[in-house]
């Protein structure tokens, strides 16, 4: 059985040569980026194999829009189609801020603005020129099955239904009790007498962050003494308004919004929290709840009358423009009217466009690559 041995030896050799190819172009091109960005980590200098496609990471909310732009860009230009990973906003910033060089992503998508700490982390790792581009708006909806009546909620109702601790129903100021409400009627006599059951995203999700900030905070502020607390003791205020109850009324349904839609369809009594684009695609099964009297619709989110909407962003590494092929062309594609305009292809995917002046402003930022400074944040 000499053959077996030869075969094994051959396979070993193959494996060996493969790993050599992988680590091969170590001393490729001494990076131009490093000079541009000043100091970089050592890892960056060690490994410089060329990359001929754009690498994008970040928010799962921006992902459906960024992928469409990437595909259009890949099909209409001679550049390769960018690679997009959906890592969540926080995960995206972590990868983005790790350094300058081909092994680090060029662009990160975010469903919230960059935090000061993240911006400082960038500067620390040599990522000095960070360009911020606002893409448009996304609405967060609370929706239920069409088999039931639509909910008409105020942000106060939302806060009282979902907070872990709520102000004492007796009206005593400054006193918190564990959330006693079991049915919607307990909160507001006008609401139906069904059990409070809300399916929503887990704490790692950007949608959850935005929901808590937009809906729960607004609801908490309806109580004068909690509102006053915001100035005196910010942490306490955050703790009251940002903590969601854990007694089973709020069910963490994972990051998969499609799953929430399916569960809502099967359980007409439950409410779900997810992005507007999923409501838009499922209008035959779902209906959005009125929040403070406004139902989520394209126009209502665009003109700001629907309260639960948030801006979406992406951030670009200035040092990579010109080094990675196609960067400036990708920015041009994303900021063109045919993409993010009032009737652009992104609106068909559920993106709510910005007003024209704002679009022009950010198109200029993208063209001239105007970097942000961490002190502004």
């Amino acid at each position: 059985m000499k053959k077996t041995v030869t075969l094994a030896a051959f396979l070993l050799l193959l494996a060996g040569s493969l790993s050599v190819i992988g680590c091969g172009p170590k001393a490729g091109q001494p990076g131009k980026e490093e000079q541009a960005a000043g100091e970089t980590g050592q890892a960056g200098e060690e490994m410089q194999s060329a990359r001929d496609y754009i690498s994008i990471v970040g928010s799962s909310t921006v992902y459906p829009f960024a992928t469409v732009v990437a595909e259009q860009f890949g099909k209409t230009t001679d550049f390769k189609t960018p690679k997009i990973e959906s890592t969540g906003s926080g995960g995206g910033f972590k990868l983005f801020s790790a350094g300058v060089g081909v092994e680090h992503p060029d662009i990160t998508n975010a469903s919230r603005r960059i935090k000061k700490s993240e911006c400082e982390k960038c500067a620390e790792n040599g990522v000095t020129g960070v360009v911020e581009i606002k893409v448009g708006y996304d609405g967060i909806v609370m929706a239920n099955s069409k088999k039931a009546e639509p909910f008409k909620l105020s942000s106060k109702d939302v806060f009282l239904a979902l907070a872990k601790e709520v102000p004492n129903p007796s009206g005593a100021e400054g006193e918190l009790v564990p959330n006693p409400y079991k049915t919607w009627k307990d909160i507001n006599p006008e609401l139906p007498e069904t059990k409070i059951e809300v399916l929503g995203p887990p704490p790692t999700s950007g949608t959850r962050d935005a929901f808590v900030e937009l809906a729960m905070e607004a609801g908490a502020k309806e109580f004068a003494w909690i509102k006053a607390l915001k100035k005196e003791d910010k942490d306490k205020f955050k703790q009251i308004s940002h903590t969601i109850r854990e007694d089973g009324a709020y069910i963490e349904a994972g990051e998969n919004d499609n799953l929430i839609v399916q569960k809502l369809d099967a359980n007409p009594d439950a409410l779900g929290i997810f992005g507007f684009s999923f409501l838009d695609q499922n209008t035959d099964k779902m209906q959005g709840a009125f929040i403070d009297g406004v139902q989520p619709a394209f126009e209502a989110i665009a003109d700001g009358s629907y309260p639960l909407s948030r801006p979406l962003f992406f951030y670009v590494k200035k040092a990579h423009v010109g080094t990675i092929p196609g960067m400036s062309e990708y920015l041009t594609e994303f900021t063109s009217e045919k993409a993010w305009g009032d009737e652009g292809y992104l609106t068909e995917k559920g993106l709510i466009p910005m007003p024209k002046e704002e679009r022009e402003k950010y198109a200029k930022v993208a063209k001239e690559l105007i970097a942000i400074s961490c002190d502004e944040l």
Partner: protein
Amino acid sequence: MNKSTKQAGAGSSGTSRRERTIDIVNKRLEKRYRNEKRFRLYGLLSIMASVAFLMFLLTSIVGNGYTAFLQTYIKLDVQLEQGMIDKENPGRSDFQGIIKQAIRAYYPEVNDRKERRELYALFSSGAAFQLRDAVLKDPALSGTTVSLWVLADDDVDMLMKGHIKRDVPESERRLNNRQLQWIGKLEAEKRIEKRFNTTFFTAGDSREPELAGIWGAVKGSFYTMLVTLALSFPIGIAAAVYLEEFAPKNLATDFIEVNINNLAAVPSIVFGLLGLAVFLNFFGMPRSTPLVGGIVLMLMTLPTIIIASRAALKAVPPSIREAALGVGSSKLQVVTSHVLPLALPGMLTGTIIGMAQALGETAPLLMIGMVAFIVDVPGGFTDPAAVMPVQIYLWADSPERAFVERTSAAIMVLLAFLISMNALAVVMRKRFERRW
């Protein structure tokens, strides 16, 4: 027999001393039969339960997914006038514009801007690329009128397949009454039909369901598996042979053995974290590539292969080794020309089962960036790529309704691969197996 009589005798009092062994056996016989019958029933029930679950799973996947193998096409007469195609660089012509003009020509009554947009929405954005391919293939088409079957938009496709109902109120469907009328015109003239969905088997990922295909993921899986096989098979076999045939039995080898068994049970995400730390951060290998994915999956399959190979080596009777040694073979000759050939079928089976396991893995790939939107079909080991289970995960998470059936169809393709790999393992075993 004696014992039981004695026990029975001791159990009953003196009066029943005349009771014979055969009577006692007969008395309990019925109960014993019943017990056996009941036991068989339990076994049958559990088999039936698992078959029922499997059937439920398969029918729900096939029931959801079989429609994805068909795709709606619309016949469009495209007039290619002389000036429309760029002579110097035909690929750069405005094909989108030509398609729109052809649509307008078919529906001359639609003039309103908003209505036109609704009209264009019935056709896939891929139609322009179809026209482009046709023109590039046959430049002589310029100046003629071409009848082209172009892709319909995913909403139209869903309507034709019955996933969007026509009888619900207008506000509750993604196609309005005007659009239904236009489709009605196409239907009346037999210009719309469902055909076999070749795009699904030839294209990479896309955000437009009608343009999305599994081929990119299949190729990504292929390259990844190739790396995994090339590394894990030789390393696994060599490790197993050494441990089983050459290594001294001492504390060190015991320790290694325990560790290998432990590794086989480690959750796969841990290998992903290891891959991220070692291969990406330390060695600086390129992210999202089959090369790194293959190495990470190799780490995961190695314990499986080593354990299966060692079991196969253990199953070779010692008499064969002794006989070979007896006629003067060296230890190496015994292994290479007697033990290894006999153990090989078992080793191959273990390898294929390990590979099948690796084929269905997503968790370790998440950490090294292979869970990503990748449109271009990978052409090598260092191109960014996704694998089949990742593709399924990404489609399952997409809002468009048409991705539901594509998810199920992709699962069917993955299952087909797994079944053929397992069948290969069975065939290998049957062919090379030797019994004593």
